[in-house]
């Protein structure tokens, strides 16, 4: 089962740090509370994406393992505390 999101990015075929940068770029246009998913086949994403999500103060809602080593990272943008 895949979580529905507000924006989906297919970064399969993109190598590190491509999927992370796609996620960062994509999340810029999201409103607080909206969700984004990025598909990545790059092994480095499993390390890089969760660390960035934590640093940005967003929520990693799920990492869904798919076929052929592809992972779907589901992220929610969270309002920054001022």
């Amino acid at each position, binding site marked *: 089962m895949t979580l529905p999101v507000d924006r989906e990015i297919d970064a399969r075929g*993109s*190598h*590190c*740090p*491509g999927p*992370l*940068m796609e996620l*960062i*770029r994509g*999340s*810029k246009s999201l409103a607080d509370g909206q969700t984004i998913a990025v598909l990545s086949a790059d092994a480095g994403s499993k390390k*890089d994406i969760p*660390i*960035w999500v934590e*640093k*940005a*103060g967003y929520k990693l809602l799920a990492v869904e393992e798919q076929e052929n080593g592809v992972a779907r990272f589901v992220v929610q943008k969270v309002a*920054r505390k001022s």
Partner: protein
Amino acid sequence: MHTQVAIIGGGVGGTVTANRLIKSLHGERRQTVDITIYETKRMHTYQPGWLYVPFSQFRPMTITRPEVRLLHEGIILKSGTEGTVTSLDTNTKTLVTADGISHRYDYLIFATGARNVPEEVAGYAEGSDHFYSEEAARALRAKLDAFEGGVIVTGVSSIPHRCPPAPLEFTFLLDDMLRKQGLREKTEIHYVYPINRVFPIESVAELAAPILEERGIQVHTFFNVDEIHPEKKLVTSLEGEELSYDLLVLTPPHQGSALAKQSGISDADGWIPTDHHTLRVKGYEDANIFAIGDSTDLPVSKSGAAAHFEGIVVAETIADELRGRAPAHTYEGRVVCFLETGRNQASILWFDYKHPPKPPKPSLFWHLDKTALNRFYWEIIPPAIA
């Protein structure tokens, strides 16, 4: 009817492709093929030279030469409005230039490079300097000449961009210059980078990070520039960090060519989806359209070296086809570039798709190699002798 090979772009990739192709064609075949470069600018720039302009190590006039002088006899160069391609029809295999003339092609090579898009970051145009154009490098030189101490923030506003090592190199050369001027103790240098290390390739990040630390340069990773506030001299990150500055030198956001985007062959940022090995444009595999250099979405550095090696593959592929042979050349992701680390030292990054670089310890030897490339670029690279 002559076979028409159209190359859009007269940078290093387009120039190498044209020169290599004409050299590879012999005898009668050479007489039946027209190779045309379409390029708006009449001057060819050695772009890595911009790095040295802010430090007055190179004068801008020494890093440009007329493109026509770099081309072998027989290659047609169209420049100005005649060389500015305004539209493209892949169905009829024609392109139209700014003078209104339509040109037929049999082979088309996108060597259109990358362009600065400062408008992608709010406040960038007013708030940040850079060295990714002659004009910007000159303006930065004037600011560095007048600098008397304070906070300098260097780094990258977004990835990808041309010449990935350049922001690190700039930072090391800046540190050198300030020490020589006796201003280093009056200056804080901060280096910002969008991912969780100081360079995309891990082995290079592992080499550079201790040097930054040793030189007293403060590093801020996972710093994705959100906005620049020129009036407050403040840069903020998506991750919630804020840095005040007296001088901000960030690599500008980049995109691929507007023509590729407008023609519908690129992604939303203008990068052209390109087969990693054949360098044919994806979706146009049977239409004889290739892409090389900075214009592509290939997972290699946007560098002159990659454009050079890719140009040779495309030229040899076309030459093979024109001779009725199966193409025998493929691109394996080869890149060779230098990393200046200041203090007259440099390292070298030599890699391909399968083999990440193992950069040697910085030394005078590699710095002298880079110096030699800077000096002899014109004789070695554009003529496609290697």
